[in-house]
């Protein structure tokens, strides 16, 4: 029974990774850059929700929506101010800017909200679902996280496959020049991608802090790195890849914690990543990129 419980917890943690990984993978797919500030947008989202609920006593749902709005605007602002001027710069310059942006957000949060941990009260409620005469207990947060993750994946796949914005995104991902000449505003498309990714980051932040209730300015950084790992694991640029990578990473992490060693769990997670990349360098669902010589 504990196996089942670990599995469900793993899927739940993995769902959070998957939601974050989607932000990485979509931005990478379209803007061809690694947005390392993504993890810190998560933290901002969690803070916004925290203050909305505790300070202004708003209902949790309103807090989550507010966090999404703030993060969407923040994501678009970051893209506009920090990344857009570097659109044609070497990718290393963009990468370093992204890391800088990450530190900027963390330190701003420290100034604004101090580095004292805040206790985040779950937006879902603290109850648990008891199954098999109470032998298996699954918290509501776990269930809600998994459901939300699946809903988000379905929604994103629909947008990308079936709407004109999705087609514009896929077109930009392949060839920005040609897309532009077909009348597509590439800047709007990239901005839209950042908006979606950041709104998802807000959701992830709230879910993460609902499950692990300590909120600090550095809260987003490790999950951010792990989600990035998940995106690479699944094949960066691929939406189903981010989903699969996230879930697998979460499950591996929880199993490693439960059966091997709590201290070594992160090491094991990253070891698996290295193993996968050695065997399949493009990630589980990634496509090989053929460069013409």
């Amino acid at each position, binding site marked *: 029974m504990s196996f089942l419980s670990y599995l469900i917890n793993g899927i739940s943690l993995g769902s959070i990774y998957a939601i974050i990984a989607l932000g990485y993978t979509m931005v990478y797919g379209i803007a061809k850059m690694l947005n390392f500030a993504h993890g810190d947008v998560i933290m901002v989202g969690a803070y916004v929700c925290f203050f909305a609920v505790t300070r202004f006593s708003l209902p949790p749902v309103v807090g989550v929506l507010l966090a999404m709005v703030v993060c969407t605007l923040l994501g678009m602002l970051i893209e506009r101010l920090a990344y857009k001027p570097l659109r044609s710069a070497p990718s290393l310059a963009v990468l370093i800017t992204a890391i800088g942006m990450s530190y900027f957000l963390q330190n701003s949060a420290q100034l604004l909200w101090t580095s004292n941990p805040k206790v985040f009260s779950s937006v879902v409620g603290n109850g648990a679902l008891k199954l098999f005469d109470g032998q298996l207990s699954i918290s509501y947060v776990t269930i809600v996280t998994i459901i939300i993750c699946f809903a988000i994946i379905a*929604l994103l796949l629909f947008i990308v496959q*079936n*709407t*004109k914005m999705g087609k514009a995104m896929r*077109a930009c991902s*392949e060839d920005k020049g040609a897309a532009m*000449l*077909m009348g597509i505003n590439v800047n709007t498309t990239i901005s839209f991608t950042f908006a979606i990714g950041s709104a998802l980051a807000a959701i992830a932040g709230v879910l993460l802090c609902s499950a692990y209730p300590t909120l600090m300015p550095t809260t987003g950084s490790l999950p951010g790195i792990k989600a990035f790992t998940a995106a690479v694991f699944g094949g960066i640029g691929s939406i189903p890849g981010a989903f699969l990578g996230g879930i697998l990473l979460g499950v591996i992490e929880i199993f490693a914690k439960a059966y091997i060693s709590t201290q070594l769990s992160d090491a094991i997670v990253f070891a698996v990543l290295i193993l996968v990349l050695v065997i399949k360098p493009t990630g589980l669902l990634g496509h090989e990129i053929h460069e013409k010589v």
Partner: protein
Amino acid sequence: MTKTNMVPVPSLGIIPERDVNRMPILDIHHLGIDFGGLHAVEDFNLVIGRTEIAGLIGPNGAGKTTVFNLLTNVYTPSRGVILLDGVDIRGKKTWQLNEMGIARTFQNIRLFNKLTVEDNVKVGLHNICRYSTLEGVLRLPRYWKMEKEAHEKAMELLSIFDMQHMANYVAGSLPYGAQRRLEIVRALATNPKLLLLDEPAAGMNPSETAELMQNIRKIRDDFQIAIMLIEHDMNLVMGICEGIAVLNYGKIIAKGTPDQIKADPVVIEAYLGRQGEESLHAEG
């Protein structure tokens, strides 16, 4: 084919007689661009009638594709004025120019290879298909209506080249000739007034080229648009172009009807070298 009667217009160009009383689709004055110290295109003047099939020819490296890139503002001109349908296009973004009526294909095919044939065409329909992403997500009636229209429109456009049955194929898997045709369809989907074709017959065999010629003419007749093409295949150029401009080292060295161009000693020299020279250094 019946010969088009070409008439001179005040700006020293020639356009088909039928287009004379209408605003020319393209009116270019003193266009130029420098790359470093090199005048890649210099003092380029051209008028194209509303339903004209115009040709831009010249040896390799003459600056033909550069002209296309200037017309679509992929490069910003260093000098000169481009009037598209009477409107100065200076400062417009590439995607805005597409909305204003310029569409193009590429010398080396640039389809969205991972998208299906139909989706490639639908990318072209992007600005015509009007609904917000929110309406798409909520699948409101307008989404269904617009997507249905887009599907029908895409199929109709694909039928020009008899490609409806390929709609669900991935574009990258199509044979070469079909990819070239799909590029034209995708460009047409953006509802252009002026279609720029960059070497549409490159890599085609003579029978494919002959079919392409018919199709280019058919597109002009059906859509009543102007078509400007860069091409090295002289049978195609002389067969369908009504007005031809010859470019060499970034400058127009001759303008005229196919018959005039064929007989022009300056053009012959540019292509074949000076008369009396032993070797013919023909290019392209």
